[in-house]
C-alpha cells in the first residue's frame, strides 16, 4: 500500500514538473521573441533614419549648390517622403529685423539648418521630386540667389480675365520657367477645375481696375487663396513694371488667418516670385526678412569697397565725384533696410538709380559700383 502511494506521488510530481517546465519554456521563449522583435524594429528605425539622413544631406548639398548660379532649373528625385521647410521668426509677420531660423527636414531626419539660403517653398508636402529654380535677387547690387521649389503636383494659375486683360499676366507667364506647371486662366469658373493638384497658386493683378476674380461667397479664397499683385508704375510705365517693385496682397487661405487679407511689399523680379512661390504671407515675410538682413551685409561690403576706391582715386577726378555721389545718395541712405509698404518706393527707386549710376561710371571709364 505504502509502495503504491509512493509510486503515485512520484508520478504526480513528474506531471507537475513537466508542466512547470513547459510554462518556463513558454515564458522564456516569449521574452526572447520580444527581445528579438524589439531589436528588429530598432534596427529598422535606425536604418530608416540613416537613409533619411543620407538623402537629406545630399538634397541639402544640392540646394546649397543651386545658390551659386542664377536662372537655372533642375529636378531632384529621391524616394517619396515628407518634406518640411520651417522658417521661424520671432515676429511672424516680419515687422522688423529679428533673428530668423530656417530649417529643412525630410522624413524622420534631423532638421538641417540652411542659414544662408533663401528658399520659397510649400511648408509641408510629400513628394518624390523637387523642381528647383533660382533667380538672383538684385536691388542695384546682387544680394543673394533666391531658390524656388515646387513639386510635380503644383500649378500656378495666372488669372487674366478676357474682359479686362493685362500685359502683366503675359509678362509673368513668360518669365516663369516652362518646366513648372503654369496656366493662363481667363474665366473665373475654370479656377476650380485644377483641384486635382495638391498645391494651387492663383495670381491676379490689380491694374488700375480690380482684375482679380470676383469671389462670390469666398469660395476661391477659402479653398485656395490667391495673390493679388499691384505693381507700382514707373515713369515711363511699361509692362515690365511688374518686376520693379509694388505690393502683393495675400488673400483668403494665404493670408494670416481668420479670413483676413494682408498686403506686403515686393521688390525686384526675385521678390515677386518669392511671393508667388511662398506657402502663405508668414513664410514670405520670414524669408524676405532674412533677405533684407543680407542686403545690409552686402551693403556694408559695397560701402567699404566704394570708400576704398574713393580714397585711392587721385583728386581731381570725375570718377571720384561719381563714387562719392553714389555713396551719399544711394548706399548710405539704405542702411538697415526694411521692406514694407512705406519703404518699398525708396528701395525701388534707389535700385534703378544705382543701375543708372553704374552705367554712367562704365561710360566714364571709372571703376564700377559692382
Amino acid at each position, binding site marked *: 500500500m505504502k509502495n503504491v502511494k509512493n509510486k503515485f506521488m512520484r508520478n504526480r510530481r513528474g506531471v507537475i514538473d513537466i508542466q512547470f517546465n513547459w510554462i518556463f519554456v513558454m515564458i522564456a521563449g516569449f521574452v526572447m521573441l520580444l527581445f528579438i522583435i524589439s531589436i528588429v524594429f530598432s534596427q529598422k528605425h535606425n536604418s530608416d533614419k540613416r537613409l533619411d539622413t543620407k538623402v537629406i544631406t545630399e538634397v541639402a548639398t544640392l540646394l546649397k549648390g543651386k545658390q551659386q548660379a542664377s536662372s537655372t532649373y533642375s529636378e531632384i528625385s529621391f524616394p517619396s517622403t515628407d518634406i518640411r521647410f520651417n522658417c521661424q521668426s520671432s515676429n511672424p509677420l516680419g515687422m522688423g529685423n529679428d533673428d530668423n531660423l530656417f530649417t529643412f527636414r525630410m522624413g524622420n531626419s534631423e532638421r538641417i539648418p540652411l542659414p*544662408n539660403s533663401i528658399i520659397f517653398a510649400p511648408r509641408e508636402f510629400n513628394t518624390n521630386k523637387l523642381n528647383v529654380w533660382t533667380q538672383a535677387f538684385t536691388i542695384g547690387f546682387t544680394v543673394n540667389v533666391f531658390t524656388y521649389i515646387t513639386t510635380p503636383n503644383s500649378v500656378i494659375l495666372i488669372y487674366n480675365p478676357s474682359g479686362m486683360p493685362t500685359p502683366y499676366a503675359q509678362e509673368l507667364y513668360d518669365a516663369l520657367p516652362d518646366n513648372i506647371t503654369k496656366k493662363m486662366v481667363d474665366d473665373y469658373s475654370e479656377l476650380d477645375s485644377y483641384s486635382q493638384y495638391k498645391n494651387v497658386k492663383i495670381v491676379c493683378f490689380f491694374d488700375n481696375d480690380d482684375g482679380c476674380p470676383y469671389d462670390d461667397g469666398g469660395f476661391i479664397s477659402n479653398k485656395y487663396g490667391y495673390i493679388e499683385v499691384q505693381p507700382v508704375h514707373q515713369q515711363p510705365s511699361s509692362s515690365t513694371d511688374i518686376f520693379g517693385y509694388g505690393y502683393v496682397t495675400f488673400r483668403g487661405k494665404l493670408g494670416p488667418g481668420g479670413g483676413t487679407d494682408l498686403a506686403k511689399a515686393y521688390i525686384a523680379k526675385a521678390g515677386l516670385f518669392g511671393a508667388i512661390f511662398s506657402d502663405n504671407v508668414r513664410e514670405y515675410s520670414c524669408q524676405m526678412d532674412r533677405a533684407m538682413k543680407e542686403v545690409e551685409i552686402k551693403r556694408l561690403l559695397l560701402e567699404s569697397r566704394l570708400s576704398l576706391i574713393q580714397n585711392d582715386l587721385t583728386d581731381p577726378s570725375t570718377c571720384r565725384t561719381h563714387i562719392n555721389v553714389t555713396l551719399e545718395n544711394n548706399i548710405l541712405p539704405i542702411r538697415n533696410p526694411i521692406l514694407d509698404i512705406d519703404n518699398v518706393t525708396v528701395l525701388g527707386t534707389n535700385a534703378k538709380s544705382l543701375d543708372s549710376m553704374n552705367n554712367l561710371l562704365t561710360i566714364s571709364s571709372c571703376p564700377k559700383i559692382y
Partner: protein
Amino acid sequence: MKKDEIAKMIRIINNKTGISHRKGGQIQMGETVAVTIIVIILLVLGIVFWNKISNSNVEEVVIQSQELSVIEIANVVSDLPELQCSESGVNKAKCLDMYKIRAMNISMDIPEVRKYYNEYFKNSRITIMKVYPEPDPAYENITIYDAQLNNTARTLQISLPINIYDSVQDSTIYGLIIVEGYYR
C-alpha cells in the same frame, strides 16, 4: 554460482559501468566547454581585429571628407559674387576684384558680417596672395577670414590660382587663393 551471487555480481558490474559512464560523460562535457571557450576567444579576437580595421577606415574617410571640405571652401571663395570681378552685371570666372577683397577684409570685423560668412568659410583661414608682378608689400597677402581656432591637431592647405583685378589701375595681376582648414 548461486542466483543471488550472480545478481550481486551483475549489480556490481552495472555500478562500475555507471561510474565509468559518468566519468566519460564528465570528460566529454569538459571537451565541449573547452571548445566553446576557445571559439569565444577566437570570436573576441576577431571582433577586436575587425574593430581596429574599421576605425582606421573611418579615420581615412574623415581625412578625405576634411580635404574635400577645404576644396569646397576654396571653390566657394572663387565663386562668391562679393569677391568676383563683374562686368555689366556679369561675373567673371577665376577673377577676384582687389577692392572687394580689401572691403571684405575690413568688414570681417563687423560681427554680423563675420557670422554670415562663418557659414561659408567654417573652420578655415582664407588668404589672398598676390604673386606676379611684384606686389606692394602692404597688400601682398590679405587675409579675408580667419576662424582662429585653438587646440587644432592639424591644418590642411589648398591653393587655387586666380586673377586679381585692380579697378582703379585697370590692371590684372596673378595671385593665389590659399585656404587652410583647421581640424582636430
